[in-house]
């Protein structure tokens, strides 16, 4: 019996919020690389008698995200306790949210190969992260470890959980959903959104539907640490589950871990009983009531969201898909582009210059756009000169180098390079001279052997250079340079 199989995918994404402190205490959030258990306090250690107090910025960040996703904000949103035992959980319960999350409903449009599919968002809520366990055995894995070590530096870090409805239809779409969410959280400045370092974690729920009406059980997949891993893991699962159903067997409902090395998902320890988390509202935390005005002001001051920017760049500026892609990954870069265009630079030239020159500098120097020393207005002046043909591209590059290396304004940098407005830089001029000298080797020989007493021949060469430079050179400087070169000093 052959039937066609359709994957049904839902994603749960945990985003670490880029706040300065943990969710319920004032411990700093920078725990990566810190000495174990150095970033802790009585509250996040769950010492007897301690109490949680929510971080206002974490609430704001979650609110911002929920609004950007079109969720409805729940008045009187509450925290619940999720009770279970594990050594990385200091209080033996995680403070999370249950039936009154901060945001409900909402959606995210995902584009794959020109096709747009709306994925519904079930909920957006806040919860605290757990600590980390180090398992003492060769490969650091849990099974076979003689004992384990607990580090609570990460315990209490604020997390935002975004749950989608099972509307995602392909691994490709899943990948693009996560990529778009990642763009969103970065654009909103609420998170680094980095899967490799763990500030964005993805768990997938995938089942396979058969066209004859049979439906495989939902399987949870964990441990996918990159977009590529996500796609590969889901591809693998579809094949695996389809094979099971084709044999007429049932897909076992379980949690599986993705093993990137082997390219397989593996069944994790199967538990005899499902967890009973005994959720109940946390009595230490009164419900949160937001001022309407606060919510409205957050909604009103949302930055341009990735999909809005994408639309604007593609339709208004006619930028290529590639260009748009680059700008969507880095909001600062996109804002720089907007500033250049706003200062009169044509979109295609601005995009081009950013993707070539600016990115080159950023790659060399590091530090990101935040540390980039050339103000958009200054670069705009440079590019305007290029546009007016006052400056060749070569000369422009020279000036640009001076601008970013020595933090100079366009004017200062041009003077520095010996280019008065509209003139060639020294190096460009020298190249030009050399080419003229090469082309007129006989005249050079004559001058060198002393046959230019009246200076007519050198003036002839000067004229050639001036013609080649199309007026972008100072005649006196050219003469001086020629003399130096002919004397062999250049």
């Amino acid at each position, binding site marked *: 019996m052959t039937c066609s199989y359709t994957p049904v995918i839902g994603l749960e994404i945990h985003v670490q919020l880029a706040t300065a402190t943990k969710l319920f205490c004032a411990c700093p959030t920078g725990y990566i690389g810190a000495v174990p258990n150095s970033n802790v306090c009585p509250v996040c250690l769950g010492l007897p008698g301690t109490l949680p107090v929510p971080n206002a910025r974490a609430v704001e960040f979650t609110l911002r995200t929920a609004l950007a996703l079109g969720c409805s904000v729940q008045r009187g949103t509450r925290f619940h306790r999720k*009770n279970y035992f594990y050594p990385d959980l200091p209080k033996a319960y995680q403070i999370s949210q249950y039936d009154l999350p901060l945001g409900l409903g909402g959606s995210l449009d995902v584009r794959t190969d020109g096709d747009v599919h709306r994925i519904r968002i079930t909920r957006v809520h806040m919860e605290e992260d757990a600590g980390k366990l180090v398992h003492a055995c060769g490969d650091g894995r849990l099974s076979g470890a003689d004992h384990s070590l607990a580090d609570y530096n990460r315990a209490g870090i604020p997390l935002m959980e975004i749950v989608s409805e099972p509307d995602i239809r392909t691994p490709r779409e899943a990948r693009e959903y996560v990529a778009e969410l990642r763009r969103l959280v970065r654009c909103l400045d609420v998170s680094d959104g980095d899967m490799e370092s763990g500030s964005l974690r993805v768990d997938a729920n995938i089942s396979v539907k058969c066209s004859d009406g049979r439906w495989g059980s939902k399987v949870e997949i964990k441990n996918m640490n990159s977009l590529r891993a996500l796609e590969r893991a889901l591809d693998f699962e579809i094949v695996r589950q389809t094979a099971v159903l084709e044999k007429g067997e049932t897909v076992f409902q379980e949690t599986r871990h993705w093993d990137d090395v082997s390219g397989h998902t593996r069944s994790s320890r199967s538990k005899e009983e499902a967890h009973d988390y*005994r959720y109940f509202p946390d009595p230490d935390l009164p419900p949160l009531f937001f001022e309407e005005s606060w919510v409205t002001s957050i909604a009103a001051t949302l930055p341009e969201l990735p999909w809005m920017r994408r639309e604007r760049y593609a339709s208004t500026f006619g930028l290529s898909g590639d260009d748009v892609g680059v700008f969507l990954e880095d909001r600062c870069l996109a804002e720089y582009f907007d500033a250049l265009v706003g200062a009169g630079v044509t979109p295609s030239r601005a995009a081009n210059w950013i993707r070539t020159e600016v990115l080159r500098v950023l790659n060399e120097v590091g530090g990101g756009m935040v540390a980039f020393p050339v103000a958009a207005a200054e670069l705009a002046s440079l590019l305007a000169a290029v546009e007016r043909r006052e400056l060749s591209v070569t000369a422009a590059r020279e000036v640009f180098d001076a601008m970013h290396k020595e933090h100079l304004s366009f004017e200062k940098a041009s003077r520095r390079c010996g280019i008065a407005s509209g003139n060639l830089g020294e190096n460009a001029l020298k190249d030009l001279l050399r080419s003229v000298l090469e082309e007129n080797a006989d005249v050079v020989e004559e001058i060198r052997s002393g046959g230019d007493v009246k200076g007519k021949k050198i003036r002839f060469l000067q004229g050639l250079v001036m013609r080649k430079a199309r007026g972008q050179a100072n005649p006196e400087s050219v003469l001086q340079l020629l003399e130096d070169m002919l004397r062999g000093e250049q």
Partner: protein
Amino acid sequence: MELWQLPAWRITEAVVRGELSVSEVVETHLARLRTHNPEIFALLTVTEKEALRRAAELDERHARGEEPGLLAGVPVVLKDNMCTRGVRTTCGSRMLENWIPPYDASVVTSLEAAGAVILGKANMDEFAMGSSTEHSAFGFTANPWDLSRVPGGSSGGSAAAVAAGFAPLALGSDTGGSIRQPAAFCGVHGLKPTYGLVSRYGLVAFASSLDQIGPFARDVGDLALALDAIAAPDPKDATCGTEPRPRYLDAMMTDSLRGRRIGLVKEFSGFDVDPELRNTLVHAARVCQDAGAELVDISLPVTIGFGLACYYILAPAEASSNLARYDGVRYGLRAEGDTLLEQYFRTRGAGFGKEVKRRILTGTYVLSSGYYDAYYLTAQKVRRRIVQEFAQVFSGVDAILLPTSPCLPFRRGELVDDPIRMYLTDVFTLPVNLAGLPGLSLCTGYAKNGLPLSVQLVGKAWSEQQLLGTAAVLESRFGTPRIAPLETKTHFKGGERL
């Protein structure tokens, strides 16, 4: 009058005037403690060295002209579930027998800022679960009025310390009556403030939505003084109200109850209340009337009829979650196991006593899948009804007068194996916690057999000033409670430590 018989407000006055040194005050109280704590066993830990060092420091600061605090020189005893940095805090449990907190509870910081001197930590029912202090893992605290009887619980040690004259002031915690009932049993006054008036940061949690810290004293003025020192907003406790607190000492100016309406609860008449306790209630009502108050009959059928059952679902539920962190990993007792699971089971099996286990089990059950709606959720709805009932009653009265406990202090061992009967002794106190209202147990005199008598006053939320004022008027008629005459006790001793 002996120094250790003085109320806190007199001590602090004398210290401020330079008539008494703090060292003198502390030494005198420590001496009494040393003599009589062995037979009473009110205190688990006596911090003698620290107290004397602090007393010397305070004297030095006063000599330099530093502004003395509200509780300058007052010795205070703390129930052993309040975290004291560097001083062991056991909660009356094997689980925390040797735990030394690395931080101070907010009330401890407040007391020290006010110039008080902490003498030590008081015995209690394990993790505040109990009504007799018989559930302490470390021994029995005797009622100073009769060493064969219980001091009440769970703050039995704190109440006994004040009744015995070890300190004029003690702090306890009240979740279902754990301040008021021992106050009644030990013949002292005890106040459970409105939920959210005093910070819970540093109070080891039993039931988070019900717990409150409050003072024991032998003088209503001392209750007010203590409240002035500890009732304040606290950014470390999200359930602690941010409203400014009034000056509670001002309540002591009240000398008339004209215009006040006092409610008398009809329903308790159906209960088996000791006749002498009934009489003292009638007497108290008359005193209020004579002072100008209007007596109003009120009805609390939901509260009296269903409060107990509601409490014994909600409190254990919260406790089961609050006590899950005791697993031998980060602090406290660890019983060895080959695997983590074994460690969990054995640690919690060995660390917790029977009553705590009972409540953890019931609490887990009512929260577990399949039972949450039927039990926990229903209990929350009943709680809501109780809150509404009180609100309705308080639209017609300013305070409610009712018994604290239906019985006089019972004998040691009498109820310890009958949990339900023990729970019933809290029938008049625990609804007050459910509604988050302030409740004050006032000692009104002594029964024929010498055991203390009391009445309970309950007020509207945040009405402590009025409540204390009413209590002050009653005290001016009944007289201030005496200190138990320990010198004449011949009954068997308490404090059999294991």
